[in-house]
């Protein structure tokens, strides 16, 4: 691998777009001969982050654009998500209590937990009027 492989996807703030993102990311993983399990993990992480942005990130119901960039490099794959919704740092979301009994389990709050488990590194930046989340999965953990 010499030049890093890049993929960019622009979507609308519509939950129905997540299935399309999944197909594009799966194609990217297959085309680059990466493990199928990696596609599942990347898609789940993207799904959770995009669902939060689309469900809670916007005031009003106008159409907005979210940009997704995947970069495959020697040391791993990086996925960036950029949106112009309200400022939100998912990394600050509190961890759920995973030992709670069924009756005490709150409904919700598990999405960001899954992203933390599936990705090796998360970084949030507040840009001028935009949120940027950078998720990285290192090559050593691809088959984990």
């Amino acid at each position, binding site marked *: 691998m010499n030049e890093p492989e890049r993929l960019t996807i622009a979507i609308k703030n519509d939950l129905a777009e*997540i299935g399309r993102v999944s197909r594009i990311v799966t194609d990217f993983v297959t085309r680059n001969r990466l493990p199928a399990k990696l596609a599942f993990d990347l898609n789940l992480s993207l799904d959770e982050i995009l*669902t939060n942005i689309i469900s809670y990130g916007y005031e009003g119901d106008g159409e907005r654009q979210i940009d997704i960039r995947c970069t495959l490099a020697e040391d791993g794959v990086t996925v960036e998500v950029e949106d112009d919704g309200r400022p939100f740092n998912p990394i600050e979301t509190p961890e759920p209590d*995973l*030992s709670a009994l069924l009756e005490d389990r709150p409904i919700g709050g598990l*999405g960001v937990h*899954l992203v933390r488990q599936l990705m090796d590194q998360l970084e949030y930046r507040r840009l001028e009027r935009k949120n940027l989340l950078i998720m990285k999965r290192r090559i050593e953990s691809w088959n984990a």
Partner: protein
Amino acid sequence: MECIEERNESVVIVGLQGRMDSSTARIVEEKMLSLIDRGESRLVVDCAHLDYISSAGLRVFLMAAKRLTQARGKLVLSTMSDDVKQVFDLTGFSSIFQICPSREEAINSHRRES
């Protein structure tokens, strides 16, 4: 996302097919709630053809299990792929749900308690 309902005596089996994400989990939620509202208390969800689940899907199972517990019923899951099972493992859901390797075992686990 498709939900295929079958009955085996007092047990209702819901076979899931496709992807259970934030845009499709509602389809399963409506199916499960309609079964519970109609008085069904022994439910099996067969995940053999469930390709994918996100936290939006987990939320539906948690909600259905809570409702069934209140109604003295039970939800048993079966035949999960490794990918789907991993999502249950990472969230601690494997320890709060009964997950059987086969549909038959899931159905039988209801019978043992009848």
